[in-house]
C-alpha cells in the first residue's frame, strides 16, 4: 500500500508541477478537485432542471421529447443536454482523480477516515444517477442498459420474477420500470447532495466553490465541447431488435461489457467487494494518531482564535467551567483533532518571550510543546557553523528538512501554521539567526487544509496573531513549494542566502544572543 501511494505521488508530483506552470499554484486544478466536483454537480443539476421542462416522462414519448430537445431547440435545450452529459462525465473524472490524489497524500487514515468513507457512497450514487439518466433517453443505448441492468439485477436472489421481463419484447414493454428510473434520476441526486454535505462536515471552511478563473475556464471548456461535439441520441429503442454497435459512455458504463465474459453474480462481488475495500482503506494499515490538542484553562482566556482557525471543526467554545471571569473556554473534540497544531499557532499566549515561568499556552499539542519549540530554536542558533544564519521552520510535509547545512538549521513541525508568529520576532530580535524561512506546503494545498492560508495572513498582518511590524521583512521568506520541488527549494534557499549577504549581520540594538 505504501509503495502504491509513493508511485501515485510521483505521478501526481509531476502533473501538479506541470499544472503549476499553466495555472499557478493558487489555481492549480488538482488542488481544487473537491470544489470542481461540487461545481460540476451544480452544472448537472441546473441543466437537468431545464431539460426536465421539455422531457416527456412516458416511455412511449420520451425519445421524441429528447429529439425535440436535441434538434428543434438545439441552441438552448440541446446545449443544456450536452452540458448535462459532459459535466456528468467530468464529475466522474474529477471524483476519481480526487480519490486517487487524497489516497496518494495519505489524507484518509486515522481521524481523516470520515471524509473518505462518506465519499464512497457518493461514488455509488453518482453511478446510479448517471446510468439512470442514460436510461431516460430510450434510444438503443438505453435499451441495452435496460436489458443489461435488469439481467444483472436478476442475478441477485431478491426478485421473485425476472425484472428483465419488463424489456422482453415490444409486446411486454411496460412503463413502470421506466417511471422508476425517472424517479431515481430526480431524487437520488437530492440524496447525493445530502451525502456530499455530510462528506465535508468535519471540514471547517470547506471549499465547495472553485476560484472564479477555474469556474469560467471549465464552463467555457464544457460549452465549447457541447457546441463542437453535441450529445445526440442513438436510434430509437426497439425491443425486437438487438442493439449492435453502441456509442458508449465509458465513464459510466465501463463495467457493463464485463457482463459478456463473467457471471453477473461475480460482477456484483467485484462491485461491492471493491467498494468495501475502498471503504476500509483508511485502516489499511491503521494509523497511530498523534495526541490531540489539550487546553490549559489557566492560560486560556476564551478568545476563540483557535476555534476560528481549526480546519477540522475540532474546537468548540463552551461556557467557562473554572469560575474565571471569561465568558467561554475552548473544548477540543478529540475524535476530530488531527494534531496539526494550527490552534497553537493562533493562541496569543503561545509566545517564546516569556522567561519567568514555563511556557504553557492556552492550547498545546502534547507531542510538540511550545516550550520545546523555543528550546529547539535556541539550540539551532548555537549550531550554525558559518555564513549567514538561516533558521527554517518547516512543515513535516514540505520536504524542506533536506536543505539543512552549515548555515541553515531546520526545525520541523506538523504544519507551519503551528508556529506562532512571535517566534519569528523572537529569532530575529534576539539575534538567533540572520534570517528566518517558513517552508510550508504549496499554496492552497496544505496537508492540514488551511495552514498555508493562516500563516500567509498572519505574516501579512491580516489575521490574528499578527507578525509584529518591527520584524524586518527582508530577513523573512515564506516558501510555498511542493515536496517534490527540490530544485526550486534549493534555488529559493540560495537566493535568500544571497539576499542576506546584502544585508548587515543581524545585531539588533541593545540585544545580544539569548540563551
Amino acid at each position: 500500500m505504501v509503495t502504491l501511494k509513493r508511485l501515485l505521488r510521483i505521478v501526481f508530483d509531476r502533473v501538479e508541477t506541470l499544472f503549476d506552470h499553466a495555472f499557478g499554484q493558487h489555481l492549480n486544478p488538482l488542488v481544487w478537485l473537491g470544489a470542481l466536483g461540487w461545481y460540476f454537480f451544480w452544472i448537472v443539476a441546473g441543466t437537468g432542471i431545464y431539460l426536465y421542462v421539455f422531457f416527456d416522462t412516458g416511455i412511449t414519448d420520451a425519445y421524441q421529447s429528447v429529439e425535440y430537445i436535441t434538434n428543434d431547440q438545439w441552441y438552448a435545450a440541446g446545449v443544456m443536454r450536452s452540458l448535462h452529459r459532459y459535466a456528468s462525465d467530468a464529475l466522474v473524472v474529477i471524483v476519481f482523480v480526487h480519490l486517487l490524489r487524497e489516497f496518494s497524500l495519505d489524507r484518509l487514515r486515522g481521524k481523516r477516515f470520515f471524509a473518505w468513507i462518506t465519499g464512497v457512497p457518493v461514488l455509488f450514487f453518482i453511478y446510479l444517477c448517471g446510468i439512470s439518466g442514460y436510461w431516460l433517453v430510450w434510444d438503443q443505448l438505453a435499451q441495452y442498459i435496460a436489458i443489461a441492468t435488469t439481467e444483472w439485477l436478476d442475478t441477485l436472489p431478491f426478485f421473485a420474477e425476472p425484472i428483465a421481463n419488463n424489456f422482453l419484447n415490444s409486446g411486454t414493454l411496460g412503463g413502470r420500470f421506466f417511471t422508476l428510473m425517472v424517479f431515481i434520476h430526480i431524487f437520488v441526486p437530492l440524496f447525493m447532495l445530502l451525502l456530499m454535505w455530510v462528506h465535508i462536515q468535519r471540514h471547517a471552511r470547506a471549499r465547495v466553490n472553485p476560484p472564479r478563473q477555474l469556474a469560467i475556464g471549465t464552463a467555457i471548456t464544457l460549452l465549447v465541447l457541447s457546441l463542437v461535439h453535441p450529445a445526440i441520441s442513438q436510434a430509437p429503442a426497439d425491443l425486437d431488435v438487438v442493439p449492435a454497435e453502441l456509442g458508449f459512455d465509458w465513464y459510466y458504463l465501463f463495467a457493463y461489457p464485463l457482463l459478456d465474459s463473467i457471471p453477473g453474480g461475480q460482477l456484483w462481488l467485484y462491485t461491492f467487494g471493491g467498494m468495501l475495500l475502498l471503504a476500509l482503506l483508511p485502516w489499511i494499515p491503521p494509523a497511530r494518531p498523534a495526541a490531540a490538542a489539550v487546553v490549559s484553562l489557566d492560560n486560556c482566556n476564551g478568545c476563540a482564535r483557535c476555534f476560528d482557525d481549526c480546519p477540522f471543526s475540532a474546537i468548540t467554545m463552551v461556557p467557562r467551567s473554572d469560575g474565571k471571569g471569561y465568558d467561554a473556554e475552548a473544548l477540543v473534540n478529540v475524535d476530530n483533532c488531527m494534531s496539526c497544531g494550527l490552534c497553537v499557532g493562533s493562541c496569543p499566549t503561545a509566545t517564546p518571550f516569556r522567561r519567568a515561568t514555563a511556557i504553557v499556552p492556552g492550547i498545546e499539542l502534547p507531542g510538540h510543546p511550545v516550550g520545546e519549540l523555543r528550546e529547539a530554536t535556541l539550540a539551532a542558533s548555537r549550531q550554525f557553523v558559518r555564513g549567514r544564519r538561516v533558521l527554517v521552520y518547516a512543515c513535516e510535509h514540505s520536504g524542506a528538512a533536506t536543505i539543512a547545512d552549515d548555515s541553515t538549521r531546520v526545525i520541523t513541525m506538523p504544519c507551519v501554521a503551528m508556529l506562532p508568529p512571535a517566534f519569528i520576532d523572537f529569532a530575529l530580535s534576539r539575534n538567533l539567526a540572520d534570517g528566518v524561512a517558513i517552508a510550508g506546503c504549496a499554496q492552497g494545498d496544505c496537508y492540514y487544509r488551511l495552514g498555508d492560508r493562516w500563516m500567509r495572513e498572519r505574516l501579512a498582518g491580516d489575521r490574528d496573531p499578527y507578525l509584529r511590524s518591527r520584524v524586518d521583512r527582508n530577513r523573512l521568506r515564506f516558501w510555498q513549494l511542493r515536496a517534490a520541488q527540490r530544485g526550486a527549494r534549493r534555488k529559493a534557499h540560495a537566493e535568500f542566502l544571497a539576499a542576506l549577504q546584502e544585508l548587515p549581520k543581524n545585531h539588533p540594538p541593545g540585544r545580544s544572543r539569548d540563551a
Partner: protein
Amino acid sequence: MPELRRIPLQVIAYTVFAVGVGYFATLPHYGYGDPELATIKVSLSHAANRAKPCIKMTAEEIAELAANMRRTETCERQRLPLILELDIDNEPVLRLHVPPSGLWGDGPASIYERFDVAPGAHLFAVRLRDTARTEGWDYARTDEVFLAAGRYFTVTFEAETGGFIFR
C-alpha cells in the same frame, strides 16, 4: 510566470480535458449483439403444482377452526420444481430443473435465458412439466419459426392462454 504567458498552457490543458471527456463519452463503440445472429430469449415465471395434494377437511375439523379461519381443505405450501426442455432442430438446447422461489418454496419458479443462434428457419420444440408426473409433459409446443438476423425471438409462457407463446 506572468499570467498572460500561462494562457496558452491553460488552453492546452483545457483542450486535453475536453478531448478526454468528449472522446470517452461515446467512443470507442461497444459491440453488444452480433448483427449476423438472432437472439433467443426464453422467459417464464410460473407456479408449479403443490408438492403434495390438498386434503379435504372433515366437518368436525372445520368446526374446530376459528370462524374466520374455516376452509374446506388444507394444503402444504411447498411447490414442485418446473422442468423445461427446449430443442432446436431436434438438438437439445435447454434442460432446466428450476426450484420454486420463496423461503418456503411456495413461490413461482422463474426462467430467463438468452442465447444466440444462426438466423433462418428452425424447428422449435419446447416442453414444460409442472406436476408430479414422471412421464410426458403438461405443456408442449413444436413449431417451425424463421429467425431474422439482429432480432430477438422470445419464448414465453402463459398457462391461462394455453401455454407457450413464440414471438
